[in-house]
């Protein structure tokens, strides 16, 4: 994608990520069932992309696949993940992968509040991370860590000498971001970065994400089950349901005029601080798991207020309309837009 750039130029430009036809399956109920199914999507270089959907929709699995780190017994059964300057991550192994995880993609894991080693100080663990990547200049590494920590409004000396239990939830989350950025990652992935935090800590972590994203020229993916978090942060939003991307587009447009009934349902189900409370509507039913995802037709049809007979027969194809992509028969009918197969979608996005 950026073959005409030299390696040095690439480092100064935000990296793009292109996911194409990605399928990841887990064994369940005696068969291989897809947690992520034929997903294509781009992370625009230099932008924040938000990935939103209920628990179990496949967000973490998709994000782990970006580093070729799908947990066993999961299996990538189709597709590719291209990162500028790295190539197809899914074909890498061993030392190639080590170059991706850390220096390429910085990853803040879901529940990373609890992922620090309780027996070692933060400083020791940062050094361990550097050593495991063969970093010789540990002094420089610590300097960078100190800068990042201070950048996040924390006292570096205190944080580096602290154990996990001495840090609040918000502080641990910030330390998680420091770990992710320590090796100069170009792509930052944050999985549910504020889910266990209170509103004030959430707000300050969101501010920090915005700031490091901008200051370090990153390409960022933020995952959340909360449309509010994505709405506050993301330039583009990807809505996932049952392993599929059901809607994708520019965030403000999606919030102003959601096309897919699932996106509409997510938005209507948010308790809001202004406006008429009686307009809020609970999303009916519950999110499916691998065993209960409908095998044929639209995966959302059992919870969908607009479902029609055709929705039970075939999967709705992607519709492209004004920079938006969605997969819904009813929305396509009212869109007057072009219906696109997968190939066209990729060409257009």
């Amino acid at each position: 994608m950026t073959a005409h750039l030299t390696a040095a130029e690439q480092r100064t430009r935000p990296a793009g990520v292109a996911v194409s036809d990605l399928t990841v399956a887990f064994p369940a109920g005696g068969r291989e069932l897809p947690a992520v199914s034929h997903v294509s999507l781009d992370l625009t270089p230099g932008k924040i992309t938000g990935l939103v959907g209920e628990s179990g929709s496949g967000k973490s699995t998709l994000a782990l696949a970006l580093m070729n780190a799908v947990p066993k017994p999961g299996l990538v059964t189709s597709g590719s993940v291209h990162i500028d300057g790295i190539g197809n991550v899914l074909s890498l192994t061993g030392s190639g992968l080590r170059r991706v995880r850390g220096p390429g993609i910085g990853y803040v894991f879901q529940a990373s509040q609890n992922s620090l080693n309780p027996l070692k100080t933060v400083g020791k663990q940062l050094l361990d991370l550097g050593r495991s990547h063969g970093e010789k200049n540990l002094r420089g590494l610590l300097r960078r860590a100190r800068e990042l920590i201070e950048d996040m409004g924390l006292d570096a000396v205190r944080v580096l000498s602290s154990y996990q239990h001495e840090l609040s939830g918000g502080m641990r989350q910030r330390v998680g971001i420091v770990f992710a950025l320590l090796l100069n990652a170009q792509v930052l992935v944050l999985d549910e970065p504020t889910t266990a935090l209170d509103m004030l800590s959430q707000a300050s972590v969101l501010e920090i994400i915005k700031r490091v994203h901008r200051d370090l020229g990153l390409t960022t993916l933020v995952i959340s089950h909360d449309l509010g978090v994505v709405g506050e942060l993301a330039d583009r939003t990807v809505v996932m349901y049952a392993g599929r991307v059901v809607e994708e587009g520019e965030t403000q447009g999606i919030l102003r005029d959601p096309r897919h009934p699932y996106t509409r349902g997510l938005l209507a189900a948010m308790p809001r601080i202004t406006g008429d409370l009686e307009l809020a509507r609970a999303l009916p039913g519950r999110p499916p798991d691998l065993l209960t995802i409908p095998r044929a037709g639209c995966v959302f049809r059992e919870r969908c207020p607009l479902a029609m007979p055709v929705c039970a027969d075939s999967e709705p194809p992607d519709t492209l309309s004004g920079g938006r992509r969605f997969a819904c028969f009813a929305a396509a009918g009212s869109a007057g837009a072009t219906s696109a197969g997968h190939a066209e979608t990729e060409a257009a996005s």
Partner: protein
Amino acid sequence: MIVATGITRTFAGRGGRRSTPVHALRQVDLTIPDGGAVSFIGESGCGKTTLGRILCGLEGFDGGELTIDGQPVSRLRERQRAPLFRRIQMIHQDPYSALNPTRTIANILGDPLALRARQLGKPDDWIAGRRAELLGLVGLDPGYVLPRYPHMLSGGMRQRVVIARALTVDPEVLVADEAVSMIDVSLRLGILRLLRDLRSELGISLLFITHDVATARYVGQDGELYVIYRGAVVEHGSTDTVIQRPVHPYSQCLLSAIPVLRGIEEPGPDRLIPLAPLEERVEPPGCLFRPRCPFARDDCAGRQPPLGRLGGTEQEHACRYPQNREVVAVPAANA
């Protein structure tokens, strides 16, 4: 009715002998009227759970008095307290650990109902009928959930089971402590609506504890809101007043922290953030919020401002310089 006056609770610090004591609650006054909705908001560590536990009799207090339906708790014997506290039931934030994983939902509800049947002198066959009735009330299908174990249910369904179990003892008050914070946003509204319905249909009063002001608004728009900071009430009034016209800078920070749905909302023009993170170990002189307050002046370090209506405000507050600020998101012009 529950009336708490001057409730104080201090814990010995957790960091050994050198550590400072934690003032979890400082002279909290609170009234929960029969059938009323009261919300208690603040960031984590501000004392919300401690208050909830005290109201449920799960935790003692060091100062002040708790009066339940006219009876001052501290003057009662243990034996007299139990039936009073039975009227107040707690819904925890974690529906995953609240239910015994080795028992079916049928047993989880059947056991307390068997006890209740004996108390009320009901025959054994009353139990199954009541169990089905309670499940209907919380929106669960008895045929589906009764034979299942907790891990087979979603977080939202589990929380409904927890609520049904609390209802087995016919409580008058439910204390919901972060009851939806571990549940997907998409499923929260269903639980919040249920709490609202229990109030309107059964007349159960509600103490709703949360760090998320929007959920407090949903369950208790017609009720009272208490904003608590480091164990002290800093603003208290009708929910609508405090949300729409907050005067304490801390309340304003909490309201500012609610994510703005850009495209359909715009940040309030006065949106603000605290100057610094909370330093629990430092006990500043004067107003406790001063080190984080963007509007602090020199004399804020003087005396701790008492809760009152300085400036002729509708609500009570504890700020020396109360001022209305537009911090809540507003609908976007082009939405």
